[in-house]
């Protein structure tokens, strides 16, 4: 009884979220956006149903091919891509974003690498997924697309944890990233580095300790160099996040307008089509990255909380699938899907509410955009298939 219900519940929740998305897109962007999104919804549901039919085994077998193909597409999009940045292929009726596909590709690739390694890791087992994730991240960041580019490393870390690597080891591996972040301020970095060196000295071998120190130093040194090479709008967004009310009509314009939109919705919202913030172009990307602020403005706290609850419920279902699955590949894929959705939801809503910097990432099933929606449906289909196979 429960197996049938579970997959149906997931599909039901996803479709409710998608309807919320369609309604909000209609309000924020008008009927043109609405109808295109509707077509993609139908296409997405088709993909979902198709994916449910594809055995997990097949994904496992083709994971390397998919990975390489996606890699090539990511390179190609940098050369021939269109859009405001080199983010997508213009296929006429549809703008295809390979970075969306990359999210699935990296999950499959990592899962395949680790499916039979169990807990006995060696450097090679770790290094290949790390290099794979970093190469994807780098290619997407080059487009430039900071929001999607940053997704690969948390997914990698989460999957490592899921596969049994200790928190400390993961921290050690990712420490160069912290070093990089702290590198923007020399004093913070020195503090971090000294602390890092002391804490890690006792817990590791001398060789790996020295390697960790070296990589941390290199990462720390690189951050000022990278900062100098960031695009102006990227720098502006980071500064804007750190001090939004300093210049109300300057860099952090988006952030403040988004908070006003959300806050002005109050408990019950201004009503469908009655938002003033989104209507008059106060909100940037109001049908894509900032869809949640339009939602909150028109449907208020009630609408926002309902949406959040649906998301949490969906994520919980996927988590449960990952938890209960026996097959290691499928288990890792499921948690990868959980991680991708979680990351996107938290980062997107966090950005809209002013908790996180504006990085530009789609909110699954709500944001306008074909690639994102179809890939989201594909991942749901995959999760359901994993669930079904595990029940057999």
């Amino acid at each position, binding site marked *: 009884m429960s197996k049938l219900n579970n997959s149906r519940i997931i599909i039901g929740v996803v479709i409710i979220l998608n309807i919320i998305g369609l309604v909000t897109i209609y309000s924020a962007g008008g009927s043109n956006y609405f109808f295109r999104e509707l077509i993609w919804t139908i296409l997405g549901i088709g993909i979902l149903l198709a994916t449910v039919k594809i055995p997990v085994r097949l994904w496992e077998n083709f994971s390397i091919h998919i990975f390489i193909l996606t890699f090539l597409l990511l390179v190609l999009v940098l050369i021939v891509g269109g859009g405001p940045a080199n983010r997508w292929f213009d296929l006429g009726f549809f703008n295809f974003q390979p970075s969306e596909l990359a999210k699935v590709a990296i999950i499959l690739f990592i899962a395949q690498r680790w499916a039979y390694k169990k807990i006995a890791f060696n450097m090679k087992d770790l290094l290949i997924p790390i290099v794979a994730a970093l190469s994807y991240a780098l290619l997407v960041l080059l487009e430039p697309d900071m929001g999607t580019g940053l997704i690969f490393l948390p997914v990698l870390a*989460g999957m490592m944890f899921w596969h049994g690597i200790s928190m400390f080891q993961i921290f050690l591996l990712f420490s160069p990233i912290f070093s990089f972040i702290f590198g923007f301020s020399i004093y913070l970095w020195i503090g971090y580095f000294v602390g890092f060196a002391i804490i890690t000295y006792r817990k590791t071998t001398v060789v790996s300790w020295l390697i960790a120190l070296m990589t941390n130093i290199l990462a720390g040194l690189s951050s000022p160099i990278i900062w100098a090479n960031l695009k102006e709008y990227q720098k502006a967004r980071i500064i804007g996040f750190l001090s939004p009310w300093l210049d109300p009509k300057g860099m952090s314009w988006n952030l403040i307008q988004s908070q*006003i939109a959300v*806050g*002005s*919705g*109050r408990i019950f919202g201004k009503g469908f089509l009655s938002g003033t913030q989104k209507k*008059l*172009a106060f909100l940037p990307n109001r049908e894509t990255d900032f869809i949640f602020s339009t939602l909150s403005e028109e449907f208020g706290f009630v609408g926002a909380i309902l949406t959040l609850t649906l998301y949490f419920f969906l994520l919980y279902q996927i988590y449960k699938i990952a938890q209960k699955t026996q097959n290691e590949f499928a288990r890792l894929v499921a948690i990868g899907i959980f991680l991708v959705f979680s990351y996107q939801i938290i980062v997107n809503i966090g950005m809209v509410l002013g908790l996180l910097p504006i990085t530009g990432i789609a909110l699954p099933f709500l944001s306008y955009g074909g690639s994102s929606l179809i890939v989201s449906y594909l991942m749901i289909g995959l999760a359901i298939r994993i669930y079904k196979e595990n029940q057999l």
Partner: protein
Amino acid sequence: MAEYASRKSLLILLGICFIIITIKLIHLQIIRGERYFRLSEANHIRKVYIPASRGKILDRNNIPLADTRPSFALSVIPCEIDSGIITKLNKIVPLDSNKIKSLLYDQAYLRTPIKIKRHLDIKIASQIEELAAEFPGVTIEIEPVRIYPDGKAFAHIIGYLGEITTEELKSDSFYKPWHYVGRYGLEAVYEKYLRGRDGIRYTEIDALGREIGPIPEKREVPPDPGCDIILTIDAELQKLAYNLLSQHQRGAVIGLDLKDGGVLCLVSYPSFDPEVLTKGISTKEWEKLANDKSAPLINRVISAIYPPGSTIKPPITSLALEYGFITENTKFAPCAGEFRYGNRKFRCLGKHGSLALTDAIVYSCNIYFYQLALKLGIDKFGEFLKFWQIDEKTGIDLLSERKGNIPTRAYLDNRYGKNRWTSGLLVNYGVGQGEILLTPLKLAVIYSAIAQEGEFYLPHLLKEIRKSDSIIYRYQPAKKNLPVSKRSFQIVKKALQDVVTRGTGWAAYMPEIAIAGKTGTAENPPYRDHAWFVGYAPVENPEVLFCVLIENVGKGGAYAAPIVRELVKKYFEKRNFIANE
């Protein structure tokens, strides 16, 4: 499998993130929701003020003396301009460097237009319009500005406007930064009636501050134009008086309608251009104007005090008659050209011999009035001046009216010390010299009482206030009655008539209309004398009175009397009493 099941950390982490998001949502939407709601309202609604047009100021025949016409103003939207555009603009229109600075820095984020230069020349305005493509964010706006036709002739009555100051903005919430307020004259006195109330239009704006269109729920409040102020002034008489005065260096003319106290003309010369002052002048220019020796900013009719000279004789005489100090036939010691009092000699302009009262006024014999003053004594003399309220204002509806000065015993004790002054001073007061000081307006009011035998009206400029052509207020003149018998005034009036027909005021004579009046020559050592003439017409049932003062020219009969004649002539020409040749 046990180790897998224990990895709930990811779910816990997710839960924490969702809780943080929920807390933030509660904070934004519930705790601070009202504030953000207000912000969002303000965000998309712009209040646009529609300037109310200031009321006109019209003369008694509805000739505009202060009017409003459209003018060009240069506006910029700070966030759309840069220093390059400003530099280019500065070549066409010189701009204030402080304003430029604030535009490029402090106000640089503003998306609403700011006026940076007003009263733009039409040539420059059209030049900028033509080059619009080169000046993004720069617009030419049309706004109402004040104009004053024949401004110089009316400047001291009408006054001028000035841009509101920061302090005034703080103290009076009615005003907005673009407002002009009355600074002087009737513009200031009737500011509350003239200013009107700006309308408000609500428009919806987009994120870039561009107007999208009206908001149906928010009704437009139409501007409430200011009231029109109609004056008792006759513009033609005023201009004539101004032209007549302008032949001299400095002077004042006041004309009164005796039937209601309405001011027919009120001229102070030299004058200034109120339009120039309204547009705003530099501090340097202002100082130059304020420190000008001929004091063009002073309204000599109401704000300057002069010794009345011989014009004081009739007012004193009428009271001396009333209280029985003299009669029509009283004679004093004959005039031999000078009068000795103590060890001082006081002179007369002629050797008049023995004169009775009428002839003493007609020939303005000083010897007679020296003796009259001595007969009255300082206290009585002061009392008489007090009776004429020389030390009080007339209460005309203008700012900065000055009181006159009466040399009472107390005043003299205070000025010279107790018993340190002699009656020699009093001798001089008898002929209106020395410390008796009054404004031309006050003298005109005194004579209006004499002319009408004790009944008179206080002077005023306001005739009525109109709001969109219906009268909302009409000035009601209050009749004043002096407790003096008509007989006393009649004796004096007879003499005043003779002054013009056969005495010192011959230059005011005109065959068509009988004028009565009195000359005065106020000493102003070491300079030349001030010339006075105050006259009314017709002698029987007087309608109009003019008082003229010309500074430092000489005798009143020679310089001031002809001006009164011309004004009386003009007045009756307009009334068709005299055929216009």
